């Protein structure tokens, strides 16, 4: 989908006409709306433009072929990272989101949340039209109310406050600026649910500018990360993962391999992929960083003041010393990052990076990130104003403070003391429920927008479908209140053609500039100078708060549900967390040793008391976690998530995913500590009490290690080796023999002639475990592409999740020192497929191009194929999985059959994409080019860990990877000849005592 078959702007313009100029704007757009609208009007009756009749395409529109997909370049609004997307649309609606490969930040990757944004477009619970507390009111009436109130405030004075998440849309910022300027006492307060305010404040102190640097992990040869989950949830994970991957390519010539050392208390996704991982308690962060700065200072020849080591373990400090040496060795290509919301720690990080010469190389403050500009101090001040009843009009947009912030009761009291509270929110969330007026915002896929995630880099967001709901963006709303009745697009275009156009000189005319940006999805501009820190930055608050305790709390965002915004997305709820593999819940994670000490088993409901607050959560035993840490994911417990009560099949012994009136998981935000410097997410003392109740968690993996249970382990078979890892040093020393291959390569020593004649392509995948971070973007991409149903918590508990592509996560090694492997596991399309021989009705057969095909129509459902599959990748339709939500059904991919009850299904290697590319090539009379076909998982992968290709084309990228000395097939020894080749993972830990490569391969061969 790299190329746009039709100019995206043309479509957008037409959609725009359709949306804002009313119907029928042109005959062509009417026809298009008819095609889309019939579906929508029929199912939900929610189209803004009710279509009276459908008109067949007797004279088809020139640019749109019915049934043929086209791509629209846009921007993902799933988080603040603003990754580029190409929305694959059919018949006027998006059916799949893909990463935009030309996008310089995301480089073609798109995370799980980004993929799932598609489904939230079709969320039937999004609000339709403005409403007050009684119910729906007209937009005009709502506007009149607000304009009157604003006029009163202008005349009589009064405080207007705008509370938002970080606004990185230049056009919206401009409108906000105009509004604030027109009011006597108005302020814009920004905060981020996952705050990085401490980093900005530290830069205000060290650099005089309140900025968030942009990190270049591709430049970093050595990264020391203190609890910064940069591959998972921290700031811009797709961009970071792509950079991390660029610094790590064992196949490159010469091989590149950076080293990541992760110091952390919980086990984060980055921790699972770190080359070296040091478990530290939150109170050790600051002394460890101080020691690091001290050591670096000494290495730099200076004399740094000796840091107090009182609170850190000696072992931690020894690790820090070693890491300092390593960083110093790679100064100029080294990077220190920290996730802590702690000014002292962030100051130390900045000093370390200065000492390492990292600024300008591995992190950039010239063109900084604009993604998270939240200011905790301003938020605190606003809370005080609200509590004092000093605000006359509060507008909340793009955030949900009542849910996200601690002490929500105080906040609610403050809101009720405010004369007018307006919430711009797509759904009736916790904050909107407390507002006087709710003005729904549209979904990013049905509206115009822009973003400047990194200074000087602006991306455009354009509608991919006519609005499904009556909603208005904050930009248009504010403009209208100031008497500017222009539509969203006009506002946006005007801003781009005036302000942004001026920041570049590559394109001469404003219109051409905007058109080019539309077609590519982004534009590169000169960065605007960041204003200097307004006031002298205050001295950092001490970290006294983070003190040693028996147990301390670490609150963190989770991959699937990074914050509460996504809690209403069933795809993400059902995505097992890549680390714990638990879906549909957040838990109180403790280490195995602590669990033993407290007598806890996974599923025991515990009460966490932190200060005066307490929540009850099921316990989870997480290997790899620090013994003194209780980790809880934020983003759960959203109001209204009992909508998933009946998400699964209903039958006698079914248990509801959530009880009516309950929530999915529990909101841990009340446990976030508030200090003068803002919210602190880690380090508060906590006590754990057993309640005596138990729940059964929905965990997709029962056995978590590569080791088989010790009492069952045969000699020589103690460890299994589906996921293998090599030490980089061993690989460099002897690439050919670093990985002990199986006794025979596939095809060697076969007794029987090949089963399947094959003279054309033989499709396969290469999966590079050295690149896979386990982020699970591929899982959701596959779900979206292949219409994989959501089955609900009870079915996941019963191990009946339907994901065609799962990520196996294994721990290996002693408790506390374990290595973690992530292994994407999909149908291996075996050449000697055990599933094919056992099906009595030939419902699973081999294609001429090496695919193992499942014929749903023919399947009678004996499940013998699944039993005989050594990879257990086949998925059975145990029930008729619900497709009742007609609006949600619009997300279904029309190219892929929706399976009925009683049939088997599995990864098809995106056969619909293969067929599309092949028929296109056939039409042109050409061969299918290498790289022309990309599976959904491959397309979405931020680190390009998955490569599709033709085994019969030795020059192709996949075949070259499959020929690597790192390549192996999982269970090759069975002789099933899998078409998916895995490339062994890579661990580059120069600090590890030299070990033989053998020990690294996960027990050698089987």
């Amino acid at each position, binding site marked *: 989908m790299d190329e746009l078959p039709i100019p995206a702007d043309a479509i957008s313009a037409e959609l725009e006409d359709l949306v804002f100029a009313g119907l029928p704007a042109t005959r062509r757009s009417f026809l298009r709306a008819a095609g889309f609208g019939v579906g929508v009007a029929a199912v939900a009756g929610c189209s803004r433009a009710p279509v009276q009749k459908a008109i067949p395409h007797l004279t088809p529109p020139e640019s749109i072929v019915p049934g043929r997909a086209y791509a629209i370049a846009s921007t993902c609004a799933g988080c603040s990272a603003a990754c580029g997307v190409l929305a694959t649309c059919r018949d006027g609606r998006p059916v799949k989101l893909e990463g935009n490969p030309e996008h310089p930040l995301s480089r073609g990757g798109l995370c799980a949340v980004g993929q799932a944004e598609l489904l939230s477009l079709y969320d039937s619970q999004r609000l339709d039209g403005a409403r007050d507390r009684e119910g729906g009111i007209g937009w005009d009436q709502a506007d009149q109310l607000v304009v009157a109130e604003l006029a009163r405030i202008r005349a009589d004075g009064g405080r207007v406050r705008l509370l938002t998440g970080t606004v990185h849309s230049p056009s919206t910022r401009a409108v906000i600026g105009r509004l604030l300027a027109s009011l006597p006492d108005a302020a814009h307060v920004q905060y981020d649910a996952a705050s990085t305010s401490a980093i900005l404040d530290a830069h205000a102190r060290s650099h005089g500018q309140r900025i968030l640097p942009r990190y270049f992990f591709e430049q970093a040869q050595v990264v020391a990360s203190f609890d910064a989950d940069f591959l998972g949830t921290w700031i811009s994970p797709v961009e970071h993962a792509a950079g991390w991957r660029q610094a790590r390519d064992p196949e490159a010539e010469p091989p590149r391999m950076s080293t990541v050392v992760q110091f952390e208390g919980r086990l984060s996704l980055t921790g699972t992929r770190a080359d070296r991982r040091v478990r530290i308690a939150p109170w050790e962060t600051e002394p460890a960083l101080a020691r690091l700065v001290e050591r670096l200072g000494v290495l730099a020849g200076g004399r740094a003041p000796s840091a107090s080591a009182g609170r850190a373990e000696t072992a931690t400090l020894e690790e820090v010393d070693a890491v300092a040496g390593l960083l110093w060795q790679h100064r100029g290509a080294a990077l220190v990052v920290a996730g802590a919301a702690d000014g002292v720690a962030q100051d130390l990080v900045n000093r370390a990076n200065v000492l390492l010469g990292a600024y300008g190389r591995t992190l950039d403050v010239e063109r900084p990130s604009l993604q998270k500009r939240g200011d905790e101090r301003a938020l605190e001040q606003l809370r005080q104003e609200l509590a004092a009843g000093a605000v006359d009009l509060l507008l909340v947009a793009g955030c949900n403070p009542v849910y996200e912030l601690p002490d929500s009761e105080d906040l609610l009291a403050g809101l009720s003391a405010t004369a007018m509270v307006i919430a711009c929110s797509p759904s009736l969330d916790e904050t909107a429920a407390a507002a006087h007026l709710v003005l729904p915002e549209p979904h990013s896929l049905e509206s115009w927008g822009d973003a400047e995630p990194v200074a000087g880099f602006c991306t455009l967001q354009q509608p991919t479908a006519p609005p499904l709901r009556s909603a208005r963006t904050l930009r248009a709303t504010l403009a209208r209140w100031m008497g500017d009745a222009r539509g969203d697009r006009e506002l946006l275009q005007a801003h781009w053609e005036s302000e942004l156009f001026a920041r570049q000189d590559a394109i001469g005319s404003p219109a051409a500039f905007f058109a080019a940006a539309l077609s590519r999805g982004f534009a590169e501009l000169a960065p605007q100078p960041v204003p200097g820190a307004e006031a002298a930055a205050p001295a950092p608050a001490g970290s006294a708060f983070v003190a040693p305790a028996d147990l301390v709390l670490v609150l963190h965002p989770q991959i699937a549900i990074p914050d509460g915004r996504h809690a209403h997305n069933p795809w993400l709820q059902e995505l097992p967390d890549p680390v714990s593999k638990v879906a549909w819940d957040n838990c109180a994670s403790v280490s195995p040793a602590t669990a033993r000490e407290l007598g806890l088993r996974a599923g025991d409901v515990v009460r966490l008391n932190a200060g005066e607050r307490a929540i009850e959560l099921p316990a989870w035993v997480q290997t790899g976690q620090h013994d003194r840490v209780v980790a809880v994911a934020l983003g759960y417990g959203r109001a209204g998530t009992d909508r998933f009560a009946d998400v699964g099949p209903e039958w006698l012994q079914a248990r509801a995913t959530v009880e009516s009136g309950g929530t999915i998981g529990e909101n841990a935000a009340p446990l976030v500590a508030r200090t003068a410097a803002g919210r602190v997410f880690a380090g508060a003392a906590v006590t754990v009490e057993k309640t005596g109740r138990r729940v059964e968690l929905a965990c997709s993996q029962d056995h978590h290690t590569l080791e088989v249970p010790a009492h069952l382990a045969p000699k020589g078979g103690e460890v299994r080796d589906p996921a293998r890892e090599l030490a980089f040093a061993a690989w460099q020393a002897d690439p050919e023999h670093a990985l002990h291959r199986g006794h025979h390569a596939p095809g060697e020593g076969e007794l029987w002639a090949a089963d399947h004649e094959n003279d054309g392509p033989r499709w396969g995948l290469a999966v590079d475990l050295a690149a896979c971070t386990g982020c699970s973007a591929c899982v959701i991409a596959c779900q979206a592409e292949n219409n994989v149903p959501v089955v609900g918590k009870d079915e996941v508990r019963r191990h009946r999740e339907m994901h065609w592509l799962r990520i196996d996560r294994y721990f290996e090694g002693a408790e506390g020192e374990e290595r973690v492997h992530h292994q994407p596991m999909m149908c291996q399309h075996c050449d000697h497929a055990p599933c094919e*021989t056992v099906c009595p009705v030939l419902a699973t057969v081999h294609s001429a191009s090496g695919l193992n095909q499942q014929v749903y129509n023919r399947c009678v459902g004996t499940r013998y194929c699944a039993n005989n599959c050594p990879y257990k990748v086949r998925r059975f339709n145990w029930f008729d999985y619900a497709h009742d939500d007609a609006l949600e059904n619009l997300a279904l991919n029309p190219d892929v059959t929706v399976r009925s009850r009683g049939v088997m299904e599995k990864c098809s290697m995106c056969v619909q994409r293969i067929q599309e590319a092949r028929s296109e090539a056939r039409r042109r009379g050409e061969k299918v080019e290498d790289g022309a076909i990309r599976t959904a998982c491959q397309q979405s992968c931020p680190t390009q860990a998955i490569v599709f290709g033709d085994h019969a084309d030795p020059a192709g990228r996949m075949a070259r990877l499959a020929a690597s000395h790192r390549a192996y097939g999982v269970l090759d020894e069975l002789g099933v000849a899998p078409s998916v080749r895995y490339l062994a993972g890579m661990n580059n830990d120069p600090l590890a005592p030299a070990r033989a490569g053998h020990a690294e391969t996960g027990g050698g061969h089987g």
Partner: protein
Amino acid sequence: MAEIHAPAVRPPTILGDKTLGGITSDVFAPLDRRPTRLWWWAFLSAAAALLLGTVCVGYQIMVGIGTWGLNRTVGWAFDITNFVFWVGIGHAGTLISAVLLLFRQRWRTSINRSAEAMTIFAVMCAGLFPVIHMGRPWLAFWVFPYPNARGPLWVNWRSPLLWDVFAIGTYFTISLVFWYIGLLPDLGTLRERARGLRKKVFGWLSLGWDGSARTWARYEVACVLLAALATPLVVSVHSVVSSDFATAILPGWHTTVFPPYFVVGAVFSGFAMVLMLMLIARKVMHLEDYMTMRHVHAMCKVIVFTGSIVGLAYGTELFMAWYSGNPYEKFAFANRMRGPFGWAYGVMVFCNVIAPQLLWFRKVRWSLGAVFLITILVNVGMWFERFVIIVSSLHRDFLPSAWTGYVPTWIELGTLLGSFGLFFTLFLLFCRFLPMIAASEIKAVVASERHHAPVAEGVAAEGVTTENVAAECETVEAAA
């Protein structure tokens, strides 16, 4: 050739000095009387179980296989366990009627009819499971290779499930025909005794049996031919069923010992079932004279013999797992014995290997209560054998990430109970409406034994007489 062994050294097959007319009235009289209270209780319980099973199966077909406790890793459990269990039960019938006929084991005549009936009902129970275990049972006919307009779409001749279709189909057909042909003389008798509509129905069913010498001669030939046809089935059917597992690549399934292992296991469980039914029937239907201690002993010997082979098979499996050097194989058996389903393995070994060994003891064999208990244990054990093979192998196979557990649902338990309901309902109806002893064959045995009466009397001097054997039986029974 009968002169060489029997009845000189053996007690007579039939006790009580029966006349031919007496046999007729003993066997056919119950059919004329109203059923006893005991029969009604048994029938109503069986029918209730059948009803429950029907409701469970109906619910499952309406709602989905998800109403079973299966998961992505354990794709078969109760369904195929029950299937193999019931197929195995059927084997004793064929063995008794066909193989023992060919070997001229005349003692079989008292039990062959009910054993054959049991075979048919067991195969019916068995046949139910492959159909209802399908995700889309309404398309079950797709497993038959019939000409069709879909291409034509053919079946997969490499799939053991297809072999099953033919094996079970053939087995059921032959067993039914064999049983029915065997019934003909008795149906003739029934026709003669009946009046009105019954006479008409039995007239139809007896295919105009006239009892002439020619008819008898043809009947004998047909029986021997059918026996010869059925004999290979004793071996083939369960060998094919075992291929469902043996041809798979799963450790714990993929093993060449399975065909003989399964066949012996089937005979083992089948004999236990026959013996169990026989012990009930002779009590309930007052057929102690026809199903004597001699029968019990003979069956006990078969059970202890086959049980020992089953034990050997278990040992062989373990040895091969160790000897193979294959870590997956070794693990599969370690996990089978000591993993989460180790208790089921324990039940299996105790019931199938240890319990039947008690039958070596004459005292145990003479105690009908003990024998009855052992037959029940063997059946429980053999059900668990299949459960262990299927579930313990499936739930932890190659990739540790895919390992799961398995817990049956109420629907599965109800379906299992329902299959017993179906079996016993059919069996009790059979007892009511058809002679459960092959009267014509018994008469031949009695006649032949009377022919050799002098020899028997010679033995009497040594102390084994019809009377004292019968008396001993009674004392033992009273004690039990």
